[in-house]
């Protein structure tokens, strides 16, 4: 699928559909007043758009999972880390975790570990723009914009923040 792209318009369309499904999902599960947390960097862009579409007034949470990655001993410290910011108490709250691409699931695992270090949420649901092949952990999204199958060596990358675009690239 190398070369495939989604442009800003297409992404906006996907996000509208996601927002609708998310609202339905939350209503059905009885999860009121949800807090939206986006994962740096792409997840945050998506989360911002979703928040606008959902019309929630609550502040957005930003998660940087740099300190919860499972590959620190292989890779070391990332030179630039924007700190996580959760400007609310998550105790007993319903969380909507947002990311741009779900691939192996390790980022989501790290994100959940980090969230639990801030407190005990009532629930977490996951919304991703793209869910791609290559799961390594038993983690799935509750709301997915688009599901794609990629060949080994291919990567899905979200560019942004304005305009947003999704590209499929071969790894260098």
């Amino acid at each position, binding site marked *: 699928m190398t070369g495939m792209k989604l442009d800003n318009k297409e992404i906006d369309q996907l996000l509208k559909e996601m927002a609708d499904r998310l609202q339905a999902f939350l209503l059905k599960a009885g999860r009121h007043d949800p807090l939206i947390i986006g994962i740096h960097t792409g997840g945050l862009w998506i989360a911002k758009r979703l928040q606008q579409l959902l019309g929630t007034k609550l502040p957005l949470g930003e998660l940087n999972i740099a*300190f919860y990655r499972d590959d620190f001993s292989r890779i070391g410290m990332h*030179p630039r*880390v924007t700190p996580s910011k959760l400007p609310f108490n998550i105790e007993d709250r319903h969380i909507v975790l947002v990311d741009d691409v779900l691939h192996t699931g390790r980022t989501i695992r790290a994100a959940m570990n980090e969230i639990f270090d801030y407190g005990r949420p009532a629930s977490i649901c996951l919304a991703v723009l793209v869910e791609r092949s290559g799961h390594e952990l038993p983690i799935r999204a509750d709301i997915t914009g688009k599901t794609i199958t990629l060949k080994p060596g291919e990567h899905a990358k979200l560019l942004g923040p304005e305009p947003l675009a999704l590209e499929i690239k071969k790894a260098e």
Partner: protein
Amino acid sequence: MTVYNTIQLDENGRLKHFLTTEGLGRELLVEILDHAESFAGVGSRAVKKVPLLRGKTIVNLFFEPSTRTSTTFDLAAKRLSADVLNLNLAASSTSKGESLLDTLHTLEAMHCDMFIVRHSSSGAAHFIARNVAPHISVINGGDGQHAHPTQAMLDMYTIRKHKQRFDTLRVAIVGDVLHSRVARSDIHALKTLGVNDVRVIGPKTLIPAGIESLGVEVYDNLQNGITGVDVIIMLRLQKERMISASIPSEHEYFGRYGLTEEKLEVAKSDAIVMHPGPINRGIEIDSKVADSDRSVILQQVSHGIAIRMAVMAMAMGSLSGNTVKPDEDTDK
């Protein structure tokens, strides 16, 4: 000096040992400050930890007694989820070099990953870094009169928080510069970060020979030295200095070099007052000044934890051996 670079950095230019601020590039020092920024919030969360160094063993090797430095390193290591071993070894039991090496080898045999070292002999941290197994990182918690790099970095972090830019600053370091490893490390860090105007102020008996070669100006009059400065770093005066005929009395020292509100008037109106602690009220600093808004002394302490977390994480991370810079988009 290149000689410090070759031992402190690994082949990829990442921090492996943190022994002195001398010889490290500006980018690296800024990286330490930036990382500390990221770690600063950890202490205000419900769970005051990140799992970054989980499973790693860090040893606090304190050959010189210290409560505040060892506890902040201890706390910093624990907030990174590392296991900590605190060894307070009196200097006398390890006064011979061979015992020092033996101590190291014994600890290595216990599979430790990092040593935080404080020793009364200058060059001790370098010595340990040179003689330790290659997979172990060494952080200097203060060696003799030579260096106290984590203190310098928390000082820089504090300055950056209040002043943002370094290149336009005037900084004064006041007191017993001769015996101060903090002063030396501060000077190297300040110069590297771009501070052009650094002054050292103190009686001639407490200013070391040739210190101008580090790029500082020497003053023996406090008023003259702190005129128009943005930052004043006060150093501790130790009681022994009277016995060694360096000052006649604490009373006279306070009269000439003690920081009072009145003397502070010639500094900039928004000048900040710093001190590595513990402070001697009424000797180097007047209580009113120590407790005023200008004093950032207590902030320095909390910054110390974040800085030490940053340095430990960076040094431990350098041992990963991977040259690839982590890309957030991989392994999602």
